[in-house]
């Protein structure tokens, strides 16, 4: 497991430059999350970058992850998550819960 994570971190390195951070990006467009399902490594702290392409603000909220953050229109924000146990973690946009729904899958 440790080895796999190390490999993952190593693979991420040339893309983002920082060895310690494992970053994932989530896009909000038309009050929807893209991708709606995001797979991330378990047992490791990750940095989630949420990019809001809509003109209005959205609140990234998750009871499962115990996180909430308002993201202004046309801007992005970063949220630290984990280390997570393997499993599924639902999240939603509190300002548009009808359409903005997603799941984080920790493996």
């Amino acid at each position: 497991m440790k080895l796999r994570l190390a490999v993952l971190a190593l693979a991420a390195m040339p893309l983002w430059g920082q060895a310690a951070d494992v970053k994932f990006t989530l896009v909000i467009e038309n009050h929807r999350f893209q991708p709606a399902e995001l797979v991330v490594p378990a047992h490791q702290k990750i940095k989630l970058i949420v990019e809001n392409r809509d003109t209005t603000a959205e609140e990234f909220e998750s009871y499962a992850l115990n996180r909430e953050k308002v993201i202004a229109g046309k801007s992005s924000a970063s949220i630290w998550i984990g280390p997570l146990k393997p499993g599924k973690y639902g999240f939603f946009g509190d300002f548009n819960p009808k359409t903005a729904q997603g799941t984080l899958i920790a493996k």
Partner: protein
Amino acid sequence: MFATAIIVFREVLEAAILIGILAAATRAVPRRTRWLLGGIAAGMVGAALVAVSTDRIAMAFSGVGQEIYNAAVLGTAVVMLAWHNLWMSSHGAVLAAEARGVGQQIRDGRRECSVLLLVVGLAVLREGAETVLFLYGIATSAESGTRGMLAGGLAGLTAGVIAGIALYTGLLRIPLRYLFKATSILVLFIAAGMASQATRFLIQADLLPSLAAPLWDTSGLLSQSSVLGVLMHGFIGYDARPAGMQIVVYLLVLVSIGWAMKLAGRPKKVINEGGRKA
């Protein structure tokens, strides 16, 4: 419109709980209504300003400005609530005994009122900024537009205010002597809950370790999105999946304010025994 009302209600409820309790706790303090309303007004103005500068706040401190801002607002509120409770512990007995008109004799009355203004202002500020952003989004959406925003917003606000007033009138039924004790205990748990929330924001910003995330999961037992869950969150800071660090801070704040309240309630006796007239 209904969904809008629900979200606004949820935001207003948390502030309404705190304001209802504080209004009951300070009922014998002269001119406290003016200070309370002043706090609400100041909080609303502040909320609008914060909402307008959300992106700038978020960008500060390399992307974790919003967490630091939230933690600072909550942290300040915790300190002010602690101060309020200590003041109540040392003056509550006098207030209860001479409730009618003798309030002016209390030297720190004005300072307690400015603390009241600040705490109420911070509560409104925190819940208000999110509400403003949310309503703005609704107003500019093609589906609902300004009318839907106004109707839903007003319905949610009214429901929240009614809940606060209901709590206030309920508390007023408690005899004055027990009222201070009851409100002090409520405020103590609210302060600990706010400290736990502040901690969560600092963990989210990677400024504090989580210790265990989560330490336990009681979401199956009491969901945090349920009505009871939201109420328990407002009253005792209920969190279905708290991080270990949140619990550490929660207990630390609970014990230290509780202990300080005991100390603050005691010195009067010592002074009396020392021969000074109270």
